[in-house]
């Protein structure tokens, strides 16, 4: 019967759809979420055995449920989880936890035991003497879990009948008691219990330790509903607190990134405005002119290699314009905005600057320079055009990406919090 494949349970995983949003933020909480799923569907309390191979786990369960439901053997037998219902309890048998032989199946089963169980019977055969390192580590984990979740662990020393005498048993018991201070130990012998039942020997049954174990078990079972309610509240509370911490940190990051973004832009805008105003004042002097604009009067072919007043005027204007642009370019370079974004670059390297893209290369005369630099709307146009490229600059794009990332993370934390049910209903 234990080998019946219908008894085989898949290892439980956290429900992917239900917990997707929570898992996205708290992947390390997968086990707790799976446990919440268990608590949501669990009806009967679940008792499991846990311990090394051949320590009499399966046989102990058979005694407790009064029938041979689980396979008993001298060699490694139970490789997967088997379960049986009896007296309103789900009894789970698990493979042994010897790490050197445990395969993928065993780990699955152990994980299922850990998730599903309300009460763990930690089994250790008396003839083995003290607990070994693996057992102590597991027991420590179980007891820590008990303190946190109130899932109880009973330490059961089995195969008491195999000890030479009570003294030998007593020595083992006190050695184990020293290893796990503060824990109550139960001693059982499945063989005696079985013989006592079969032969109707009450004393033997008494001496098997099983009735005492059953009393301890009954007390622990009575505490299961309260323990489950506590555990669900605990897990939800912990996760909510953790999500809120994540959310707070992310909100802080986001707001500081946004502040940084605004502050950078402010510095750029302010600096550019000041510079444009200064250029505007200088340009005012350059373009101030009484009488007709000589630069607009074409020279004659005879004057092609001659210096004329008109040519001097054009040179004067252009050199002033160039100096203004060199000044602006220096400011832009200081803000990482001098080079053109890659998508806009052309085969002509000399044109691949923000200055050229914004100003064009068309010839500027007095009226143009006045419009561009000496009038507020002209300066505002330049301000907006340079700000456009400022936002396209690499460092600004990187900052924007970080803001996007951070707000995605904040949304994820919000979604995760929304996906978490209220404390009372796991």
């Amino acid at each position, binding site marked *: 019967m234990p080998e019946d494949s219908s008894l085989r349970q898949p290892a439980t995983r956290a429900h992917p759809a239900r917990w997707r949003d929570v898992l996205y933020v708290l992947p390390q909480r997968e086990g707790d979420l799976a446990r919440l799923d268990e608590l949501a569907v669990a009806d009967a309390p679940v008792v499991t055995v846990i311990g090394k191979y051949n320590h009499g786990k399966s046989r102990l369960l058979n005694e407790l449920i009064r029938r041979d439901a689980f396979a008993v053997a001298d060699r490694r037998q139970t490789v997967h989880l088997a379960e049986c219902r009896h007296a309103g309890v789900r009894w789970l048998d698990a493979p042994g936890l010897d790490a050197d032989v445990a395969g993928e199946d065993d780990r699955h089963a152990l994980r299922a035991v850990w998730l599903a169980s309300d009460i763990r019977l930690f089994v250790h055969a008396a003839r083995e003497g003290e607990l070994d390192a693996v057992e102590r580590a597991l027991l420590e984990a179980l007891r820590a879990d008990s303190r946190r979740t109130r899932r109880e662990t009973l330490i059961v020393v089995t195969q008491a009948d195999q000890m030479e005498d009570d003294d030998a048993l007593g020595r083992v018991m006190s050695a184990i008691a020293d290893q796990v201070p503060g824990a109550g130990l139960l001693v059982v012998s499945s063989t005696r219990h079985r013989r006592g039942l079969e032969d109707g020997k009450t004393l033997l049954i008494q001496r098997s330790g099983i009735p005492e174990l059953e009393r301890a078990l009954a007390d622990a079972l009575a505490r299961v509903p309260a323990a489950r309610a506590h555990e669900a509240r605990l897990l939800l509370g912990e996760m909510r607190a953790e999500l809120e911490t994540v959310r707070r940190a992310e909100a802080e990051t986001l707001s500081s990134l946004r502040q940084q973004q605004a502050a950078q832009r402010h510095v750029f805008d302010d600096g550019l405005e000041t510079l444009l105003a200064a250029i505007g004042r200088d340009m005012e002097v350059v373009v101030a002119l009484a009488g007709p604009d000589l630069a607009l009067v074409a020279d*004659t072919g005879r004057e092609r290699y001659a210096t004329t007043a008109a040519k001097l005027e054009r040179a004067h204007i252009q050199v002033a314009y*160039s100096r203004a642009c060199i000044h602006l370019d220096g400011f832009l370079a200081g803000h990482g905005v001098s080079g053109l974004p890659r998508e806009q670059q052309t085969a002509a390297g000399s044109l691949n600057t923000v200055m050229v893209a914004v100003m064009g290369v068309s*010839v500027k005369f007095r009226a143009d320079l006045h419009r561009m630099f000496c009038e507020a709307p002209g300066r505002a146009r330049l301000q907006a055009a340079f700000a456009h490229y400022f936002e396209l600059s690499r460092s600004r794009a990187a900052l924007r990406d970080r803001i996007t990332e951070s707000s995605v993370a904040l949304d994820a934390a919000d979604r995760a919090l929304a996906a978490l049910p209220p404390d009372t209903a796991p």
Partner: protein
Amino acid sequence: MGVKIFNGKDVQDFLRIIANLDGASGNERAKQVVHRIVSDLFKTIEDFDLTPDEVWLGINYLNKLGSEGEAALLAAGIGLEHYIDMRLDAEDAELGITGGTPRTIEGPLYVAGAPEQKSKARLDKNPDPDAGPLRIHGRVTGPDGAPVADALVEVWHSDSKGFYSHFDPTGRQSEFNLRGAIRTGADGRYEVLTRMPASYGCPPSGATQTLLNQLNRHGNRPAHVHFFVTTDSFRKLTTQFNIEGDPLIWDDFAFATREGLIPHVVERTGGQAVGFEEDGYRDIEFNIELTPKVAGKDNQIVERARAAA
């Protein structure tokens, strides 16, 4: 300082070694040219008593010029390109070749591969509200005045911001905007509908204009339209015409303006009839007279790196 060492035996020997003038192999012509240029440079340093700082300023300037890709622009600005034209003209005069549409500089912004059209082409593909409609048309003839059929008239010019397609950092122009290749019919005629180009100049904060600032010169050019005219039987013509009335016409930083390359601009109405959306447009008739090959060869073909798309 003001020391004079240039004419001394030491420096003269040094110059011969620099160019490997007396060495056996290598390119003789290159050796001689390098010897001359370096000699002139050394002499300049001596005559003007240039300081080491000034020399390094110049060397670093070359790096800036190269990194900005402006060497060809500076070549126009320091008249190198026009000087080559002056020599070609003088060569023609010596050969007795007269007449024909004057050649002038090509500039660095030609792009090969514009789709060829028969007789007539519309060049503007992108809106440019600051540039009015412009019709350019004319006849390609030989020296005898007879029309040339199957001549390929390639035309390219800037938009209102002074940008050429393929070289527009604003990214607003599509491929071959304001560029065309028109094949003449039996009548030798070509016709182009386009938008008015702008006068434009060197990037205002670039290496070329930075040098021009030191000379108190601007780096601007009058508005113009570039031409290549290619046939099987005549010399290839590389030229430009300027837009009449542009104040920069005889103040071109590249010295490309020539008599005979300033056709009249005529204001016309009836734009829809010729293919424009607007009624008013400007009309330029630019006839092209090609010149014969010299001893069956085109002695003016220029090989240089050109963009293609």
